[in-house]
């Protein structure tokens, strides 16, 4: 084989349903018909119904064939996935909408995730495939979404609530701007295996990889030492060097972050902020995590104004009030001490008791 390369992905136009090809760029407005169902209307008057279905993201080829079967049956063999890994059936024939939904319900698919719902948590590999995780990804997501399912299936929250999960500080899930982020963290410094470091690691790169400068050369061992006082277990050295593992059944667990957002609607994008520095890994259902998340969702849902995202609500009431209402204890880890720390300190005597 000559090795065909650089031909690129399939051309999208070849994959669009006819109604989209016809009305491409000519959409006029949309309506949220009901949870899980969007209706887009084109200038031409054509309508496109989207039925959104939750997906575990980690799916078998069998599952793909299953949903292809459904798409063939109800929507001319067309479907798409969303940026949050949901599946969308694209229906141009209004009459197929209800039968499709009935079929999906019957088969146990999760219809929902539109509007003011909790949509599919963006997440990552965890123990399924990665070498740096501090927790699993799919397992927690499953547990959390089982628990919060009502908020996926219905659209009854004050605003969007985006939950994301990343299994280590690399944050592949880009959790750092989520309404609620679940982030795997280590809490023990790496163990340096000098033999491995010596044989396998580009020492200067490892040193440069440490955000806090905790790593120094160890000339005696021709290896490295870690100043454990300066190490905050980011795992970046391990990414660069197999000789510095830091995963640990007791050290590892999960942290919870809240108040981030991406859209610029009303307020600019925001980072999520740490509110629970550690919860233990308690597979298979991580009960501490699910109940912490539910607590936050419900306190927010109870207190926020309409259209007020988590972070917007907190900005209005203040973080001191957030801790009050949620009953989450305030610990020293929540106080920043990295590069931009001073920006997060309070430079005014105005706050709430």
């Amino acid at each position: 084989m000559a090795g065909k390369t650089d031909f690129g992905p399939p051309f999208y136009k070849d994959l669009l349903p006819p109604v989209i090809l016809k009305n491409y760029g000519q959409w006029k407005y949309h309506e949220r018909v009901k949870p899980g169902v969007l209706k887009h209307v084109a200038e031409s008057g054509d309508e496109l119904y989207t039925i959104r279905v939750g997906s575990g993201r980690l799916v078998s080829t069998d599952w793909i064939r299953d949903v292809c079967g459904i798409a063939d049956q109800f929507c001319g063999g067309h479907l798409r996935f969303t940026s949050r890994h949901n599946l969308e059936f694209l229906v141009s024939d209004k009459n197929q909408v209800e039968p499709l939904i009935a079929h999906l319900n019957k088969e146990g698919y999760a219809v929902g995730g539109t509007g003011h719902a909790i949509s599919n948590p963006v997440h990552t590999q965890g123990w399924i495939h990665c070498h740096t995780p501090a927790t699993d990804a799919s397992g927690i997501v499953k547990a959390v979404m089982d628990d919060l399912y009502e908020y996926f299936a219905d659209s009854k929250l004050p605003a969007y609530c985006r939950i994301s999960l990343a299994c280590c500080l690399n944050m592949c899930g880009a959790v750092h701007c989520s309404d609620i982020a679940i982030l795997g963290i280590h809490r023990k410094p790496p163990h340096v295996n000098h033999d491995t470091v010596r044989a396998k690691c580009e020492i200067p790169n490892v040193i440069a990889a440490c955000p806090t400068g905790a790593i120094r050369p160890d000339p005696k061992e021709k290896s490295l030492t870690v100043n454990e006082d300066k190490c905050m277990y980011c795992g970046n050295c391990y990414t660069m060097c197999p000789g510095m593992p830091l995963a640990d059944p007791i050290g590892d667990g999960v942290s919870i972050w809240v108040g981030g957002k991406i859209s610029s609607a009303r307020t600019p994008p925001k980072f999520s902020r740490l509110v629970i520095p550690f919860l233990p890994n308690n597979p298979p259902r991580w009960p501490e995590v699910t109940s912490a998340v539910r607590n936050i969702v419900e306190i927010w849902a109870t207190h926020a104004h309409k259209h007020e995202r988590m972070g917007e609500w907190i900005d209005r009431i203040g973080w001191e009030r957030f801790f009050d209402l949620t009953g989450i204890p305030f610990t020293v880890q929540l106080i920043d001490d990295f590069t931009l720390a001073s920006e997060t300190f309070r430079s005014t005597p105005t706050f709430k008791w």
Partner: protein
Amino acid sequence: MAKDSKTPLLDQLEEGPWPSFVTEIKRAAEKKDSAKDLLHQLERSYMDRIGHWKHGGIVGVKGYGGGVIGRYSDLPEEFPAVAEFHTLRVNMPSGWFYTTEKLRELCDVWDKHGSGLTNMHGATGDIILLGAPTNALQPCFDDLAEIGFDLGGSGSDMRTPSCCVGPGRCEYACIDTLDLLHSVTMEFQDELHRPMFPYKSKIKISGCPNDCVASVARSDFSVIGTWRDSIRVDSGEVTNYANEGMDIQAEVVDLCPTGCMKWDAGAKKLSIDDGECNRCMHCINLMPKALRPGKEKGATILVGGKAPIVRGALLSWVIVPFMKMEPPYTEFKELVRKIWEWWDENGKMRERLGELINRLGMRAFLKAVDLPPVPQMIRAPRANPYYFWDPEEVK
């Protein structure tokens, strides 16, 4: 040898309303030993509370430097079918649109070479084909090529760019996200497949400031559609929303961040001082039938977004407030090349674009890529007096 022992912990994740990945692994495990071993190794992780994969791995296909993530079990004796369990990142089509025909072809290839497990999709947007041994990689890629699926990025290259559904289905789209994405992906095939940069580089494209691909948070180049003229208002439809019970004052006007809207509740008349509007989308989001983005459309270009490694997470920063976005998108592509050139020349190993800009200063960056400073780039001017002068200016 795959095992048949029980998986009591994982089994508990087959219950509940949310779709179960465990069920999916089990389905694949019926056909594939690797999926079976994956299940059991995962059960072991659930018991041990620790992952069971070794560090790193460099494997790939001929002619490419990226696109495959190498992975080896640290319990190869117990789980030999996942001793080698590499994933292929397959470049998805614009907007994740598929025909069932195309998807089935993909499944066939993957059933032939790999575990039968996938991620639809990865966090970057690729189709992730989850787990194949080293010797299956090249044949698998060859078969993928046959059905028109190329690999995506990994390593220090341009990563697979992605975009929102845009004009495919969304009335807010101010740019043709799907087309721009395809054009950019094709333009930069070399950069996508052959790592040459100091670190990874990501491009994401959203059709409007709602930013449905989260470009601002997770791409080095964020392209976000916007408009320069006025919001198009259909007064009749505004009235309809009011009549249908929307509290336009409270839900729309009071939440407008610039305070540029007025609602005359008596006359049911909405007015917008468009000069003061910052195009946040809130009012349009609430009343899509009544309000629409303007007609003079283009994109705002932001750069530097990324996750925390090494120096902390960054959101992308505005560097071009407005750029027309029409095929063949030459201005945009040239800007990207210019920026890569500067980054490649100056970046340290594993230094993302945003970090380099932070290290050398926005001033140096703007000068190098020849962009004029404008107040739209900043939230606020500097508060410290530590600034520089070109000796030429001090005469």
